[in-house]
């Protein structure tokens, strides 16, 4: 089943909703090992995306994601702004000119997004960052994809892996981002960025489940 432009827009709306609902939760996670703004930052970014959708929603998916990237980069700030902004930019490149995308193309776009995050932030898995949610989610995605699963099954597996990835950040000692200043004291806390990444996967799944695909 192909993913339409309308689905992409629904995903962005759902993500904005989820981030709004989890604004305080993400901020609270960030207050334990960071500076108490991650939920506020993400909410501000996706609010900006919503505001800028109108002018691009008739263009191709690549253009829409590029506009999202610009909105994030110019409104989120902090670490999350450049990271998610770069992720959307890299995904947009893969989906340039597309009006519809296949699960395989979605996978390529997500891979590219992760590459963008790692090019920008230089983090690898195990450093207690969003990478620790995204990387396992993409492995699960690829596995299910190759096994010929439905998009819904693929995303269910990805969300579950992301969720586990988030949990796995708890015992980690941060070596990237603001939490790394805490050294040992960062251990025992869940990474806010990994959590927001999980929510983005969740938003994709919600849209697909609602569509009944």
């Amino acid at each position: 089943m192909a993913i339409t432009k309308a689905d992409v827009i629904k995903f962005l709306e759902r993500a904005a909703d989820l981030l709004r609902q989890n604004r305080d939760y993400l901020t609270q996670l960030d207050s334990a090992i960071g500076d108490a703004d991650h939920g506020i930052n993400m909410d501000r970014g996706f609010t900006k995306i919503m505001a800028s959708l109108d002018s691009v929603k008739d263009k191709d998916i690549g253009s829409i994601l590029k506009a999202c990237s610009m909105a994030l980069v110019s409104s989120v700030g902090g670490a999350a702004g450049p990271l998610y902004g770069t992720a959307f930019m890299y995904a947009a490149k893969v989906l340039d000119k597309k009006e519809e995308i296949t699960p395989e193309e979605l996978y390529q776009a997500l891979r590219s997004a992760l590459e963008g995050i790692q090019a920008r932030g230089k983090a690898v898995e195990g450093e207690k960052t969003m990478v620790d949610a995204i990387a396992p989610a993409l492995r699960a995605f690829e596995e299910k994809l190759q096994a010929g699963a439905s998009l819904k099954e693929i995303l269910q597996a990805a969300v579950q892996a992301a969720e586990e990835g988030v949990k796995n950040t708890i015992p980690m000692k941060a070596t990237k981002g603001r939490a790394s200043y805490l050294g040992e004291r960062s251990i025992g806390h869940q990474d806010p960025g990994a959590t927001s990444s999980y929510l983005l996967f969740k938003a994709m799944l919600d849209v697909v489940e609602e569509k009944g695909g």
Partner: protein
Amino acid sequence: MKKLINKPENVVKESLEGLGLAWPELIKVNLEPRYVYRADAPVKGKVAVISGGGSGHEPMHVGFVGVGMLDAACPGEVFTSPTPDQMYEAAKKVDGGAGILFIVKNYSGDIMNFEMAADMLKGEGVKVESVVINDDVAVENSLYTQGRRGVGTTVLAEKICGAAAERGYSLEKVAALCRKVNDWGRSMGMALTPCTVPAAGKPTFELAEDEMEIGIGIHGEPGRQRMKLKSADEVTEMLAEAVIEDLPFKAGDEVLAFVNSMGGTPDIELYIVYRKLHQILESKGIKVARKLVGRYITSLEMQGVSITLLKLDDELKELWDAPVKTPGLRWGI
């Protein structure tokens, strides 16, 4: 949350508007995107010095724009790095043709956003150098981590590099000078009370009535150690020892001693800390050649103090003494 604000989401904007209304002879404020710049910018042929970071540390950075210090400052939301379009637009506005120095505090967000701006500017042929300030000895320095935070030395670097740019130093020389200031500066801070980010509405952390946090970050990030409240002399010793032994500062060195309030700590306490710091330095044969005591790099209303020492040579002393006229720091003019 008790603050003199209107809506949390308007704090930065309205405060910038006030700053602009108060200092029209010195600065102009651009709101979309947000940056503050010298009223007489661009200064032809002068290297433009730009800094920025989250708001809430005032007077740093927006209060340091003016003659002899910053050409522009890019304020993010409270405690949140600014976005690349702010630095990009600010640089375009103040570029006098001799290049741009970005002074960046070592936080992943600041680094990435300034990096993106530098990439955009370089793509258009603008000469940009970035220097990262990472002077906080509270954080273990390691090749494998983000490294140390940028704190008090940032203020000194902005003053000194601003003076150098005003004197016609080339971009390469201002950048090299900035690296020297960073290499020679060390800081550490502590908090008695937390602060509240307006948008969050509640304190970033909690401290019991008899506790303090040693090695606190300027965004209320937890520090090295939480411990029982100690006397001003003991606290000063703890901070000073950590700072002194890190460089290390040695007998015969001349230093600038900078005692900074985190915001809520009043002068009467700052000078009690300064007294002890001065005595410690003298007892070690380290000469206090210059000093700065006051609120310069703050964390909103947080009570606490930070100590910064900067090793000085003749060049740094001369540039420190050079005239400066900004809302937050002023002498000689």
